[in-house]
Structure formats: structure tokens, C-alpha cells
């Protein structure tokens, strides 16, 4: 049996995971071997007891069961103590490995840039942190000890059987390869099905996830039946794979029990013969039956565990792919305060075939106000992402105060650039923590940010004021409230540069203009770059950049653009009819 295990290709790396825990693992295996070796001795004690009794009976002597009973009890208590210790160490070790692995993963993830997360996708990372770690946990807690114990029991029991009666022993042992062989054959087939079923489960989960995230739409369209049909298809597939696996096992189990029965039969036929010939005692006969019972289970365990090892290896490789990912380049070391000059030189970004930004160049001088307008998918948000270093250009340069963005220490850089994202990102923590999201925010900055974003009244109306916890995705807040919290979050770090991505979309224009006036007053000298749809609110800006399809179409002050850019005039006119009502 041990050869079968040995011939399996050694899973690369998975055992290396255990190195830091070698003390615990050694202890674990040691305890398991202690209890198992005593366990192997139990049938011997019973056999001696039986033989002792019958021997005494034939010699008409009184048999005292006491010593056997004491010997047996001691052995049993020994097994219990070590078994229990093994259990505790087993749980402790596996959870420790899991916790440390999760911590390593999260530490690694936390040091990656946004591109990495987007590329690997959050859901894959979630699987790495949960399901993959769980399968490694299972490997540590079950597979290791079980395989060592099983091999030990199979070898030990075989040796003991051989010493009792080698002929009968060989006969009984012949079932080991039969059961082992069938089992591995079936398991190989099952494994392929397991992989398939994992895919179907992913499919099921995808349908469930989308039906939860899109629940409002589904109810508006009344497409519950449609979703259910999608689910039914995936679910039926899952059931069919389940039934295929079942059929394989249904064939396997009878083969195993029948082989074991044949062993029992040969013990009776041959063993009976040996007892009749007086070459074997009744106690030995009984112990053969007991060893047979001990022998079958470990064979199956090894099979099951090889499966767990295979799964854990796959999981470990996936986890390693994340752990081995190159670290984000450390970036520069400049920690000087920014003045606020920004320059973009010939920036180009391409996603796949599609250019997102082409030949973008412009300059912004410190303290000025810049607007970026343009149609949907013009690349406006990309531009802002670029300016915060969330994405990287394929060619060209981004300069702050004449120095490359990559030369800045990222922490110091981010603490001076405030970014209000277009989508509302509210964390499931208190409003205070949502706004003072960066840990360097002082109370004073927090209060100023709240006042600037016109949130004071709203917050005062909340039951726990600033300590009110907002639920995930901010379901309890309106779109405008979320946007204003995001603005306050960006202002609270006292930025030198503020980037607004379509901030005006969800905030009514009255509040908007009040907020912008507040910003002007409370944050003098701030460089502002605002992506917006509304010309009216940016007419007086120092520079307006009009973008279309990833290119800068026109650039200049409002008055100039009205003279030089037909596209700008078109946009202006489309808003004109109502702009006189804007405050």
C-alpha cells in the first residue's frame, strides 16, 4: 500500500507549507503513532485472554481475568489520552496554518495596487481566502495524520498477522491490493467528476449572486421565472453530476465489502482447518477477525486522503500564485509637499484593442480650477484614475510639480490628493469612520469637511450622529448623501489637489454650488479637477478640457471654447435652455 502512496507525484510545495509548524506536526504524528500502536496491540491482549482462559480450562485451573482486564484498561486509557491530545493539536495546528495563510494572503493583497485586484477579480481572491484555505486546513487536520496512521496500521496489522499464522495472513492480505486497486480506479474517475461539479457549483453561485445584486431590476421586470429557469438548468446539471458520482460509489462499495467478506470466509475455512489441526488457537482465530476489521478502513482512508491532498495542492498553487505575485514597485521616495502643478505628456492607454486615452497632454498650474467634460465613455474617469495612480499609462508621463508621479512616495502622495469617486463607496462602519477614512484626519479637519460638504444638518438628524453605522452599499442613504459623504472623505485629508468624478450627477445644483463655494472658502489654494456634465457650473473655471473618445478635442476657457470649438458649443446649447435656472 505504501508503494501506491509513494508513486503518487509528490505535490510540489504543499508540505513546505508545514515547515514553520514542524514542531507541532511532529508532535501530532508522534501522538497518532503512540495511540495507533497500542491500538494494534488490543486484539493481541484479547487473544491472550481467550487462550489463557481455554488453556486453563483444559488444564482444570482457575483463570483469573484480572491481569488481562487491567492490561487492557491501561492500554485503552493510554489510547484515549494520546487520541485526545492529538485531536487538540490537530485542530490547533490546522487552524493556525489557516489563520497564518489568510494573514499572509491579506497582507500580500493589501500591498498590491488596484490593477492587480481588478485583474485577479475580488471574487477569485475571496475564494483564495476562504475555500482554498479551507481545503488546506483539511489537509493539515485530516490528511497528514490519517495517512501516516493508516500506513502504520496496514503495515503493523500485516506484520502481526504474519507472525500469528503466515499462510492465513497472506490469504487475508491479498484483499489489500484488490480493494486498493478498485478504489483508486473509481476515485480517479470520481475526481474528474468532482472538478466538473466544482464548475457547476461556480455556475450556480454566479446565478445566485446576480439574482441578489440585481434583485431590484428583477422585480421591476418581473423576471423571477427567468432567473429561476437559469438556476434550474444549473441545478439539474449539478444533480446529474451528483448522480454520476453516486453510481460510481454504488459500484465501489459492494466490491469492497465483498472482498472483506471473502477474507472472512477464508479465515473460517482455512482458520477452521488450522484449529482442527491444532496449529492455531481460538484466540488467534478471534484476533484474525479483529485485525481484519482494523485493516479495511485504513485502505479507504488513504484513498480519500489522496483526494484531499490533490485538492489541497491545487488550492495551494492558486494561493501561491497570489503570494508569488510581484510586489507593487516600491515607488519613489519624494515626500515633499505638493504645490499642485500637474502636467500630462502624451499619455496613451489601451485596453485590449480599444484605446481608452490617446495623446493626452495638458498642464494645470497650482491653485487653478479645471473642468473635464465630454460624452459618455470619453475617457474622463480614466484620466482621473491616472492622476491618482490607480491605473498606469502605456506611454507618456504624468508629472506633479515637474516630477514623475512614480517618484513620489505613494503614501505621502495619496495623503495630498483627494478623490471623489463616481460610484458611491460607503463602508459598513460609522459615518465618522467613513469620512475620516484616512487615519491622519484630525477632528478639526473632520468638522471642516463636514461643513464644507453641507452634511452638518443631515448628520445631526441621525439617531447616533456621527457614530451612526451605515449599512453596506449605503442602502439607507440617498444617492446625494452618499456623494457628499464621499466628498467629505476626500476633503478630510486636507488635500492639495481635489479630483471630482461627476460629483454633480447626484447632488442637486443648489447644494452643489453651495458646496463648491464652501470648498473655495475653506480650502484656498486647492487645485481642482472636476469631471462633470454641466457647463454652467464650470463656466468660470480656469480651463475646460473637452474630451471625446479618449482624445482632447478642445481646451481653454469658456469664452475661447465658445468661439473655437463647435463640439463645445453643441454641448453648451444642449444645456442652454435650462441653464438660466441653475443657481
Amino acid at each position, binding site marked *: 500500500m505504501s508503494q501506491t502512496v509513494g508513486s503518487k507525484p509528490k505535490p510540489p510545495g504543499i508540505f513546505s507549507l508545514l515547515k514553520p509548524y514542524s514542531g507541532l506536526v511532529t508532535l501530532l504524528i508522534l501522538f497518532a503513532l503512540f495511540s495507533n500502536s497500542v491500538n494494534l496491540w488490543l486484539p493481541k491482549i484479547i487473544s491472550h485472554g481467550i487462550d489463557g482462559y481455554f488453556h486453563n480450562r483444559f488444564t482444570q485451573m482457575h483463570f483469573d481475568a484480572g491481569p488481562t482486564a487491567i492490561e487492557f484498561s491501561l492500554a485503552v486509557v493510554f489510547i484515549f489520552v494520546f487520541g485526545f491530545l492529538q485531536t487538540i493539536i490537530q485542530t490547533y495546528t490546522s487552524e493556525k496554518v489557516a489563520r497564518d495563510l489568510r494573514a499572509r494572503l491579506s497582507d500580500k493583497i493589501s500591498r498590491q495596487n488596484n490593477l492587480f485586484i481588478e485583474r485577479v477579480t475580488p471574487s477569485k481572491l475571496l475564494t483564495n481566502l476562504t475555500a482554498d484555505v479551507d481545503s488546506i486546513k483539511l489537509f493539515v487536520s485530516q490528511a497528514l495524520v490519517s495517512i501516516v496512521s493508516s500506513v502504520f496500521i496496514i503495515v503493523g496489522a500485516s506484520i502481526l498477522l504474519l507472525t500469528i499464522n503466515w499462510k492465513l495472513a497472506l490469504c487475508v492480505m491479498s484483499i489489500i491490493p484488490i480493494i486498493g486497486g478498485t478504489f483508486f480506479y473509481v476515485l480517479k474517475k470520481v475526481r474528474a467528476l468532482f472538478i466538473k461539479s466544482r464548475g457547476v457549483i461556480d455556475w450556480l453561485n454566479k446565478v445566485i449572486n446576480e439574482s441578489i445584486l440585481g434583485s431590484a431590476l428583477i422585480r421591476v421586470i418581473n423576471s423571477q421565472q427567468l432567473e429561476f429557469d437559469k438556476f434550474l438548468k444549473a441545478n439539474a446539471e449539478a444533480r446529474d453530476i451528483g448522480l454520476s458520482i453516486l453510481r460510481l460509489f454504488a459500484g465501489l462499495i459492494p466490491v469492497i465489502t465483498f472482498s472483506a467478506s471473502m477474507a*472472512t470466509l477464508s479465515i473460517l475455512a482455512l482458520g477452521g482447518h488450522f484449529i482442527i489441526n491444532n496449529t492455531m488457537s481460538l484466540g488467534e482465530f478471534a484476533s484474525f477477525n479483529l485485525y481484519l476489521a482494523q485493516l479495511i478502513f485504513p485502505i479507504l482512508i488513504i484513498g480519500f486522503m489522496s483526494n484531499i491532498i490533490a485538492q489541497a495542492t491545487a488550492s495551494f498553487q492558486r494561493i501561491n500564485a497570489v503570494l508569488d505575485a510581484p510586489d507593487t514597485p516600491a515607488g519613489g521616495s519624494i515626500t515633499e509637499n505638493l504645490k499642485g502643478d500637474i502636467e500630462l505628456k502624451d499619455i496613451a492607454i489601451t485596453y485590449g484593442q480599444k484605446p481608452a486615452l490617446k495623446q493626452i497632454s495638458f498642464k494645470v498650474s497650482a491653485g487653478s480650477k479645471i473642468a473635464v467634460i465630454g460624452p459618455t465613455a470619453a475617457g474622463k474617469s480614466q484620466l482621473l484614475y491616472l492622476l491618482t495612480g490607480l491605473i498606469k499609462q502605456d506611454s507618456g508621463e504624468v508629472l506633479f510639480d515637474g516630477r514623475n508621479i512614480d517618484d513620489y512616495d505613494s503614501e505621502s502622495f495619496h495623503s495630498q490628493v483627494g478623490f471623489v469617486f463616481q460610484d458611491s463607496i460607503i463602508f459598513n462602519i460609522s459615518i465618522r469612520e467613513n469620512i475620516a477614512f484616512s487615519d491622519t484626519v484630525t477632528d478639526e479637519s473632520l468638522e471642516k469637511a463636514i461643513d464644507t460638504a453641507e452634511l452638518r444638518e443631515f448628520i445631526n438628524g441621525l439617531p447616533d450622529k456621527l457614530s451612526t453605522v451605515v449599512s453596506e452599499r449605503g442602502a439607507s442613504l440617498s444617492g446625494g448623501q452618499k456623494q457628499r459623504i464621499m466628498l467629505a472623505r476626500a476633503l478630510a485629508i486636507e488635500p492639495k489637489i481635489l479630483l471630482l468624478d461627476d460629483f454633480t450627477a447626484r447632488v442637486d445644483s443648489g447644494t452643489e454650488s453651495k458646496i463648491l463655494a464652501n470648498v473655495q472658502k475653506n480650502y484656498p489654494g486647492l487645485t481642482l479637477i472636476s469631471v462633470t456634465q454641466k457647463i454652467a457650473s464650470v463656466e468660470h473655471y480656469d480651463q475646460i478640457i473637452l474630451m471625446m473618445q479618449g482624445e482632447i478635442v478642445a481646451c481653454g476657457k469658456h469664452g475661447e471654447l465658445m468661439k473655437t470649438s463647435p463640439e463645445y458649443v453643441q454641448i453648451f446649447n444642449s444645456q442652454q435652455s435650462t441653464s438660466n435656472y441653475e443657481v
Partner: protein
Amino acid sequence: MKYNLNDLQANAPKSSTWSSLNKLLQLISHEKRNLLLATLAIVVNSTLSLLGPLIIGRTIDKYIFVPHKNYHGVLMNCALLLGMYLVALLTSYLQTILMGGVGQRMLFTLRNAIFNKLQLLPVGFFNQNKAGDLISRINNDTDKLNQFFSQSLMQFIGSIAVMLGAGIFLLSVNIKLGSATLIPAVLILIFTSLTSPWVKRKNARNLKSVGGMSGEIQESLNNFKVIIAFNRRDYFRKRFEEVNTQNYESAVGAGIANNSYVPVYALFSSFAQLIVLVYGIYLVSHGQLGPGVFAVSYFSYTNQFYNPLRQLAALWTSFQTAMAGWERIAQILALETDIVTIDKKVKELSPSLLEFRNVHFGYDDDREILHNINFKLERGKTYALVGPTGGGKTTTASLIARLYDPNNGMVLLNGKDIRTYQPVERTKKIGFILQEPFLFTGTVRENILYGNEQYISHTNEQLEQVILEANLGSLLAIFESGLDTNVISGGDSISLGQKQLIAFMRAVLRNPELLILDEATANIDTITEKLLSDILNKLPASTTRVIIAHRLNTIENADEIFFVNSGEVIRAGSFDHAMDMLLKGKRVS
């Protein structure tokens, strides 16, 4: 209606494993025939496998361990055994395939039941629960059930059958030795029933912390750009370390609770062997028991009784984990939607397409959002809802689309209580473009036609024709590969504005009588927006439009404007008047 599952869980009365099992079994009441056959196979199979040791013991006592040995008799019994084993080969196959089949179909039914329930629950349910938590709850808990039904159920039932059979044989062959052998089992039973609530609690706590952890991971990873832009990598680390430690502690607790059964059971079963040995010898010496039955049959039965018991310890915890998962699922299954179709024939007198009559509403009981709202929407007109953020515009729209029901008062559609309409009919009449557009992973085509049976069999060319006729051609042109452009749910592959365009096309192609746009164009540039407004104007004359917007140019064509602020909807009349109110209202707020 309270839909928060964590609160519900905290308040739920503790139910026993058996009552939850009972609820579970009700799901497979239609499988009676298969269950019966499976039970039959199990009984025959267990009986056969248990007769073996007895026959062997008797063979020894009759033919081997006696003065007049008879090897022929031994061989005769061997032949008998061989016959039995062959029959058992068949029954053991049947047992697995029948019982396992029931398990698989039960899992199938159960998954369908959960998903079906999710579809039946109203929007309120999804707003009151964290999406990440909900997803993890459903995925993890069904997976726990999956593991049990696919892997452990067969062993579970097989073990119970063999154990019961062995118990019966132990008692019937020699009642004295049999009952003595079973004493440790009684102790095990007491021990288990005393500790099982504790184990269950530990496992439930662990499951909950797993849910909390994946919720935390999801929230952080999905919002990673904020974490980077605000230098809060440490926030991610800290929050994660917290949940990680918490999970570690609860998992160690659950693990030790689960695993400690194994050595305890082993101890008890060894003592059973000791009892057989000592008491058996006593009985043999008094001639009350044959030496073969003692040395082979009783040790075999003790093994066959206690070995499954040991496995049952492991299986029992898997069963309990499954039951804990099932209980959490049952909580969802027990929820009832509060948005039900009522049967009321009385026709209210209202000629309007839609009317709000004394409507009061709040998301929870203690905070009313809308106070006594009254307004009417006429067929074919365009209405605008304006007002400051947080004033109740989206809430009003949600009530029109019956995502929620009013706490008080009534919403009338075509003069009938909106609650009397079948959902199919209602959703056909009312289109609602949500503030946050949602796309399914797939193509633009699939998303535009989502839930739209009318054009489902159209070829791309035919569909493009339909789109052109609906004046939507210029919108489709924005997507690089047209209808076949791939979109990923929740991905950033296309912009928010583009998502809104898809949602717009989706709603227009459904051709509703009443179309609500909830800031549905907020992230679309003004040129494209102009296109949208042209499209809206070209909708059939009978279509009523309700537009919610901040940007005023989108509403200048409105026939009537409602000003929504502090939970009140006020008819503002003309555009200029509305402007006045808006400006004044803003100063007030």
C-alpha cells in the same frame, strides 16, 4: 416587515435538531416509494452482513471447537456464507443507489426551494441584508448541505442500519452479555445528548464568523480603489486581522468540539470489548455461551456496533453542520413576502393612470419617509419629480413600481388598487429605470432583451431593425461591437453611462405604459442625453413618463412637475413655478 437575517437569527427560538430534520424531510414526502425500497435493501443487506459472524461462531461451536471435529460441516457453512455474501453484493449496490438518489434529488429540491424563495422575496429583504453576507450564507450553507447529502448521507444511513442490527443481534444471541456490552453505548448517548447543543452552538458561531469574514473581504476588495486612494491599506489589514482572529478562535472552538468525539467514542467502545472479554469468559465458564460465539460473534458484533458509532461521531458533526446550515436556510424559507397580490374586486373611481391616495410610507416602522402623499398621473403626459437629495423621490418611484407597499393609503393603477394586479400584468405596464443600473454577465443583446419575450427569437439583424424603429439606433452605436459587446456584471469594462444606456434601451423596448426614469441619465453626457430625451418624446402618445432628475434640462418638457421634499410631494405646476420652489426649498434645506 423585518427581513434582517442576523436579527432574526438572534431572536429565533432554539429548535432541536430533530424538528429541523423533520422540516427537511417534508421536502421529500414524494419520494416515499424510493425510500421504502431503499429501506428494504438496507434491512436485507444489514441482516445478511450481520448473520455472518453468528454463523461463523456457531460453526466453531458445532464443528471446530468440539471433541468431534467436522470439517465437512465447516465447508457447508462456508458455502452458505458465500451465497449470502453474493446476495449482499446486490443489496448493498441497491441500498447505495436508491438512498443516494433520494439524497441528490433532495438537495436539488432544496436548492430550488431556496432560489425560488429568493425570487419571491421583495426588494426590502435585499436592502436589509448585506449582499456579501447573503451570498456567502446561501453559497456556504447550501454547500454544507451538499457535502452532507453527496458524501455523508449514505455512510450515515448505512452506519445506523448496521449499528442497529448489531445491537439487535447482541441482545438476541445472549441477553445478559448483550445488554452488558451495550452499557457503554448508553453512556455515549448520554454524553452526546449532553454535549450536542454545545457543539451545535460552537458550529453555528463558527459559520456566522465565516459569513462575517467573507462579507468583510468582499466589501474591502470591491472597494479597493478607495483603500488605495486614501492610504488605508492598513485599514484592510486591520479589519481583516480582526475577522481573521475572530474566525480562528471560533474555528478552534468548533474544531475541538467536533473532533473530541472521536477519542471519547473510541474509549467507550474499547470498554465494551473489555466487557465482552471478561463477562464473556465468565458466561462461557458457566456454560451459558459457546466459545466460538463468544470469541468471534460477540467481538464482531461489538465492532460492528461501535465502529459505525465512531464513524457516526464524525458523521454526526457533519450532520449537525448540515443542520446548522439548513436552519439558516430554513430561516430564509420561512420568510414571506409582504408584497402579495390581493383579491379585491371593488373598482375605485379614478380615471387616472396612476394615483397616490393618502399614502404613508417608511422603510422601518419608526421612521416615516413619505407623509400623506396624494397625486395623480394622467395617460400620455410627462411628469417630473424634482427636489433636493434625500427628499423621497426614489422612494415615491419605488412605490409606483410596487417595490414596496404603502404603510397606509393606497396606490391605484388604472383605478384599481395596485395590489390587485398580478405581477406579470403590473410589470408590463410599469417600466422603471433604476438609479443604479444592473447588468448581467453576457452580451449587450442579452441585457437589452433581459426578461423581454417579444424579441427573444429575433436575429441580430431583426433586432437591430427593431432598435432602429424605436429610435434607439444611435445609442447602440456607442457600443464597439454593437449587440455582441460583452459585459461583465459588476465589472468596469464599460462605463456607468454605458450601463445606463443599456438599462434605458432595456426599459424602452419593453414598451411600458408608464416609464419611470430615476436619475437614469445622471452619468450620461448632455449630447447623448438630448438623444435620450428625443427618444422619450417619440414614445407612443399614450406612454406616461415619470422623470426624476437634478439636471433641469431633462425635465423642461414635463407637462407637470412635482416637488418632492421632506417626505411631501407638492404639485408645482409650471416649470418656472417649480424652479422657484426648488430654489426656495433649497434655501430651506
